[in-house]
C-alpha cells in the first residue's frame, strides 16, 4: 500500500543555513512562491484590459473582488473596507494554495499546521493591535459581558478569555485538518484501486474505490473553496470584534 502520509513530506530543495537557523528553500516554500506567482499572473492578465464591459477573465477577477468585499461589508460594515487588502490577500492565498494542492502530485501548503497557524496568528495579532489602537482599554469589554451578576463575573471573564485565546487554535486547526484529512482519504482510496488491481480476481472490484475517489475529488474541490471561505469569514468576524468590542 502506498503511504498516504508521504505526500506531506517536506524536503529541502535548496539548503540554506542562516546564522545557525535552517531556512532552506523547501517544496513547501516552492508551492507558496508558485501560489503567489499564479495569483500575480492571473490578476495581471485579468486586469490588463480594464474594459468597462469585462471579458471572461476580467469578470472572474471582479467577482472575486466583490465576493470578499461583500463579506467584509456584511460582517463589519463600510469601515471594514480598510482591511480589504489584508483579507483579500488571505483569501486568495489560501484558495490558490488549496487549489494547487488538488493537482495530482502537487504539495498542499495548507495541510501543514505550521502554515495555517502562522496565518491565524497574523489575524489574531492584527485583531489585538487594531483592537487596542482603536478602543484602548475599552477593548477589554470583550471579556466582560453586560448584565452579569458581580459574584460570577470573575468566572465568566475567565471563560471569555479562554474562549478568546482558543480562536487562533480553532481557526488554524480547521483549515489544516480539512486539507490533511481530505488528501489522506483521496490517497487511501487511490491506494485501494492499485491494491485491488494486484489482487487477482478481486480486480473486478477495483472500479468501486475508483468511483469513490472521483466523487471525493469533486468534494475536495468544494472543500478547498469552502475552507478558504470559512477562514476569511471568521477573519472578518474577529476583525469586527476588534472594531466593535461591545457587540
Amino acid at each position: 500500500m502506498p503511504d498516504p502520509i508521504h505526500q506531506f513530506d517536506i524536503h529541502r530543495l535548496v539548503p540554506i543555513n542562516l546564522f545557525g537557523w535552517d531556512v532552506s528553500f523547501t517544496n513547501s516554500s516552492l508551492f507558496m512562491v508558485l501560489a503567489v506567482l499564479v495569483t500575480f499572473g492571473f490578476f495581471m492578465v485579468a486586469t490588463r484590459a480594464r474594459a468597462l464591459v469585462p471579458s471572461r477573465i476580467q469578470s472572474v477577477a471582479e467577482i472575486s473582488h466583490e465576493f470578499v468585499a461583500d463579506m467584509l461589508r456584511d460582517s463589519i460594515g463600510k469601515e471594514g473596507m480598510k482591511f480589504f487588502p489584508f483579507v483579500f490577500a488571505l483569501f486568495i492565498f489560501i484558495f490558490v494554495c488549496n487549489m494547487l494542492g488538488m493537482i495530482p502530485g502537487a504539495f498542499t501548503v495548507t495541510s501543514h499546521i505550521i502554515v495555517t497557524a502562522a496565518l491565524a496568528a497574523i489575524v489574531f495579532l492584527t485583531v489585538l493591535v487594531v483592537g487596542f489602537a482603536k478602543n484602548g482599554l475599552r477593548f477589554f469589554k470583550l471579556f466582560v459581558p453586560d448584565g452579569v451578576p458581580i459574584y460570577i463575573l470573575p468566572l465568566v471573564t475567565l471563560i471569555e478569555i479562554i474562549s478568546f485565546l482558543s480562536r487562533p487554535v480553532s481557526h488554524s486547526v480547521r483549515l489544516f485538518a480539512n486539507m490533511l484529512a481530505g488528501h489522506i482519504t483521496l490517497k487511501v482510496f487511490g491506494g485501494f484501486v492499485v491494491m485491488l488491481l494486484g489482487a487477482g480476481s478481486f480486480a473486478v472490484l477495483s472500479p468501486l474505490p475508483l468511483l469513490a475517489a472521483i466523487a471525493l475529488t469533486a468534494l475536495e474541490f468544494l472543500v478547498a473553496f469552502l475552507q478558504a471561505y470559512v477562514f476569511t469569514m471568521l477573519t472578518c468576524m474577529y476583525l469586527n470584534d476588534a472594531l466593535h468590542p461591545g457587540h
Partner: protein
Amino acid sequence: MSDSPDKQHRAPGEMTPEERAKFEGRVSDLGGRLGEIRARQHAGEDADRDAAMRGRGMAYGMRMAAELVAAVIVGGVIGWALDWVLGSRPWLFLLFFLLGFAAGVLNLMRSYERMQREFTASTGGKIGHRVPDNDD
C-alpha cells in the same frame, strides 16, 4: 369565400364554436405543459439547494468540532502552564480544563447563533424540501 353558412353573420376574427373549443383545448394543454416544466425546475432547484446545504452542513460540523476542542486544549494548556509555574500540580490543570470546556460550549453556542442567523438570511427560514401544499 366558400365558408360555412353561419360564418357570414359574424364579425371578422370571431371564431366558430368548434374553433373556440379547439383553441381553448390548446390553451389548457399549454398551461399544463408550462406547469410541468415549472414543477421540474423547482425540483431541480430544491435538489441544488439541498446539495449546497449538505456541503455547508459538513463545513459547519467541522467548525463546531474544532470550536469545542480548541477551547478545551487552550484551557488545559493554560492550567498546565500555571501548575508548572506555581508548582500546584494537578489542581489548576483540572480547574482550567473544566473552564476550557465551559469556554468551548460558549464558543459552540455563539457559532450556532451565528449559523442560525446566516441560515435564516440565506433561505428566508425555509428548511429542506418544499412540501407540497395539500390545502389547494
